């Protein structure tokens, strides 16, 4: 996780602005330039290697989207669809790579969201690796007694052998967590957040610039036209 000098709220506004701009651009060349600029941000942040890893997951979706749009419409629509998905993915990649779940949660609470809600969001993110590990254990345990859950068509038939124990364990874990949270004072009134986040001048600058850019774009696209 790269730490970032921007406040998570600033980055939320930035990501939102970028997403709206990407959705409203509909020429492939302009999209290509915009996507290039967004992608370029990975370089100074030293995130290029992680981005390639991320793109290995997103890539098939981008190409699938591209291929379907090409078959259904034409090449330029397909380019727009593919580039837009890739650029949107990169925006979210940048946001989550530079924002810890804890800071995101703090930001959301300071923006007025109830603590319980933002806490659930953070904890869910923390528990993804735990459940992934459990899923791997379950897969091994089932394969060890001959149930083919490793892959291939037969694995689909035995999907319950993988999902059943995983769901049961996830529910059990959630139950135990709820109990442990209760015992650690989750329900206590007057919770204090250490080190509250502060919006500095640079944050305000970026927030206002983003909002102005957003307003200008919407004005040009929908009202001026």
């Amino acid at each position, binding site marked *: 996780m790269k730490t970032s000098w921007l406040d998570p709220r600033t980055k939320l506004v930035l990501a939102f602005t970028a997403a709206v701009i990407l959705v409203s651009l509909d020429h492939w060349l302009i999209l290509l330039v915009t996507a290039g600029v967004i992608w370029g941000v990975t370089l100074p942040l030293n995130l290029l290697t992680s981005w390639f890893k991320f793109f290995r997951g997103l890539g098939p979706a981008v190409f699938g989207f591209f291929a379907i749009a090409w078959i259904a419409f034409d090449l330029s629509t397909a380019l727009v669809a593919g580039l837009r998905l890739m650029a949107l993915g990169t925006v979210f990649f940048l946001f989550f790579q530079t924002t810890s779940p*804890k800071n995101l949660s703090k930001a959301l609470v300071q923006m007025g969201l109830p603590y319980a809600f933002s806490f659930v969001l953070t904890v869910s993110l*923390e528990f993804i690796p*735990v459940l992934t590990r459990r899923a791997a254990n379950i897969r091994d345990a089932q*394969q060890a007694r001959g149930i083919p859950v490793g892959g291939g068509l037969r694995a689909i038939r035995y999907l319950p052998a993988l999902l059943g124990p995983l769901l049961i364990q996830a529910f059990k*874990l959630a139950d135990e967590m709820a109990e*442990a949270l209760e*015992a*650690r004072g989750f329900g206590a009134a007057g919770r204090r957040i*250490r080190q509250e986040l502060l919006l500095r001048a640079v944050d305000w600058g970026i927030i206002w610039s983003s909002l102005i850019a957003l307003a200008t774009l919407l004005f040009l696209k929908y009202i001026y036209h």
Partner: protein
Amino acid sequence: MLLSFENVSYRYDGMEDWALNEVNLTVAEGEYVLVAGASGSGKSTFCRLATGLAPHFHGGDLQGRVLVDGLDTREVPVSQLFGHVGLVFQNTDAQLFNRTVEEELGFGLEGLGLEPAEIKKRLQWVSGVLKLGPFLDRSPHQLSGGEKQRVVLGAILSLRPRLLLLDEPFAHLDPEGSEVLRSLLNTLRGEGPAVVVVEHRLQEVVADVDRLVLFHQGRLAADGPPRQVLGQELTGYGLNLPALVGLFRNWGLDGPPPLTTMEAIQLLASGPPRRFSQTKRTKPREEGSPPSSLNSNDAPVVEIQDLWFGFPGQPVLKGVDFSLWPGECAAILGRNGSGKTTLIKHLNGLLKPSRGRIMVLGRDTRVTKTHELARRVGFAWQNPNDQLFQTSVREEVLIGPRILKAYDPPWCERLFERFGLGPLLDRSPFRMSEGEKKRVSFATALAAQPELVILDEPTAGQDEPFRRELGGLIRELREEGKTVLLVTHDLEFAAEQAPRWLVLAEGRILADGTPERIMADSRTMAASGLRPTQCFEFFQRLREKPLENAHEDFLA
């Protein structure tokens, strides 16, 4: 009194039976208490009642009164009790909600609404006491079992509770982790909170505590100084007695039993000889004798040659060599993270060696598929919940052999009988107790009649009746010529059942030999984080310095 149970009975919602029945109990300031009992005796319910989780979180029917630090738990919510009483639960994963260890330690303090300066002060204190300094920036989920437990303990201790409860804290620790926790608890003892440890395994802390409380079927069965309680008749309570206590009882010696090796020596030396009743005297167990079928002319069941395995930049196994023979029972021992699980996953091809070769019953695992090996190699994993997905116990056990085309009805019927599953066959495996699930997982492992049976931490969290049953099963399997491989931290059990130990440290086999030879080798034991069993220490000291007035026939 810090904690007082006044005639407390409690039952969970929708249950007819009382989980705790007319219990009267107090814990005073600074006391160190061990609460013991078999599975289902009411130990965990006791913890929930003492923290107010029952009835506030679990609902249910509470009769009598529980007072914590003077507060009636029925009247005061958990969110106010948590600063007075802290509970470390069994499952550490479920108690780590934060991204870093530092955030985890501060979580409860933020809940208390303390000033940032005070939070900082307490964090420094607790990370110093529990030696968590190097981990503060790391994710708690990436730590080892023992380290995670220290983080959870720290998160509770930072709240400065006056009463600290730990529910089976030793169940999943390796011997070294247990030792660290044990000395931590001893340190805490002088520093303030009363400590209550709830454990199956008395041996870990019984020598340190002031009081031993026994629960049996929801009732308080005994309460007093440990030597006094352990001197009473305890059969039927399903306790994992400390090895020396068991030994002295087998010898029929009356009176308070010894809790440490030194005490045992002193007891024997303090002649004139203590009275021991001939009637109670039983022959010591025959331990680990190889079955007659063991024959060195047989082909090996497993042959591992120069096995290397690792993840990028992280070698796990580094040149492992050994063979296993028909009818043999061997135990793989070592720290958490020494490569034990990685090693056993090679035996059915779940993992393939990056260098070297493994032959299992004449098949090269590099080119044999896991489902082919599954027919010959049975696994019972530590967590039986990893496998359960069928609607009945019968289907759960039979699905493996059916897929593997190895279904033999008479054999499976015998298995059902062997594990006492007959009355449970049509029940959902999800509605069973953890002990029953474990029995289902053993039946599952054996259902396809494998020649090699691998048991991963089979005794973790299990009570004495289960251990006895398991010991019987292992002996039966060996008599049938099957090979049993144990992976365990439970050295007492390993010494009883496995005449051969394989000690793994940092991916290498550090020692391969009899338990006696390995336990006598203090360098190997230290390098692999193991400690000799109490019985071994006791007999070794006697051999080194024989007692003049001891009964010769004890030592024969």
